[in-house]
């Protein structure tokens, strides 16, 4: 079920590991942590946008927000977002404002895509469970 996300690189093994945990302990865990991640992501993106709009950009500030996002995205297995963060960090270190703005747009785009994909995934899983089925564990 989550294969399409995995194959396109949206999520990696870390996400699979978390899904396996979901079956063994708290069933709402993955949905909960993913929602928390997107809330966090939105806040960080807004803060970064504001920082990049300033006349004199505080690249250290932007970098610390990127660092936060890098850590949380790797922890839930949001691979593509994590990869953009790596490039984003380099732009911050180079104090490259245009580069940073492009990276921020990419982060935003990847967040929206991932959110849509995961919402589809969770809906499908809900339907399966409601119909009396069970979700197979991904290898």
């Amino acid at each position, binding site marked *: 079920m989550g294969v399409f996300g995995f194959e396109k690189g949206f999520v990696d093994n870390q996400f699979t*590991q978390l899904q396996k945990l979901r079956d063994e302990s708290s069933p709402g865990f993955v949905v909960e942590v993913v929602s928390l991640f997107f809330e966090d992501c939105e806040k960080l993106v807004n803060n970064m946008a504001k920082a990049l709009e300033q006349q004199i950009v505080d690249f250290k500030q932007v970098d610390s927000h990127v660092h936060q996002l890098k850590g949380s995205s790797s922890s839930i297995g949001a691979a593509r977002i994590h990869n953009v963060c790596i490039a984003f960090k380099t732009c911050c270190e180079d104090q490259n404002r245009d580069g940073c703005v492009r990276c921020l747009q990419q982060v935003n785009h990847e967040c929206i895509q991932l959110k849509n994909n995961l919402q589809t995934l969770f809906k499908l899983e809900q339907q399966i469970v409601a119909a009396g089925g069970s979700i197979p564990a991904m290898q």
Partner: protein
Amino acid sequence: MTGGEENSDGGKTDFHVLVVDDSTVVRMVHRMLITSLGLKVQEAKNGKEVVDLHINGAYFDLIFMDMEMPIMNGPTATRELRAMGVKSNIIGVTSCTFESAHKDFIEAGLNHCVSKPLTIAMISSFLPDSNNK
């Protein structure tokens, strides 16, 4: 108690783990991974909370310490804990890929340093072979 939240699941062991990270998402993920292994886990948001927990008499068998945190970062907190005589196994966890950053953190008194993300395999590798069975 200031800072930590006790998540006692009536676990199979008396092995206490402390997760230290300023990101709520990261703490939540690490807590779930550790709980799934049947271990008891507590959380702290920064280095100062860790130090305060220990000043108040807490003890942990294993501590996962993030490197970059506000108020008090991982290396500083680690140095303080060691200065206080804390002998727990402290594992540094960092998003930083620079070798030099790992080296500084290790020199602060870590037993080991790993890169994010934490996985079950990694956590298991830091557990003793038998836990109070």
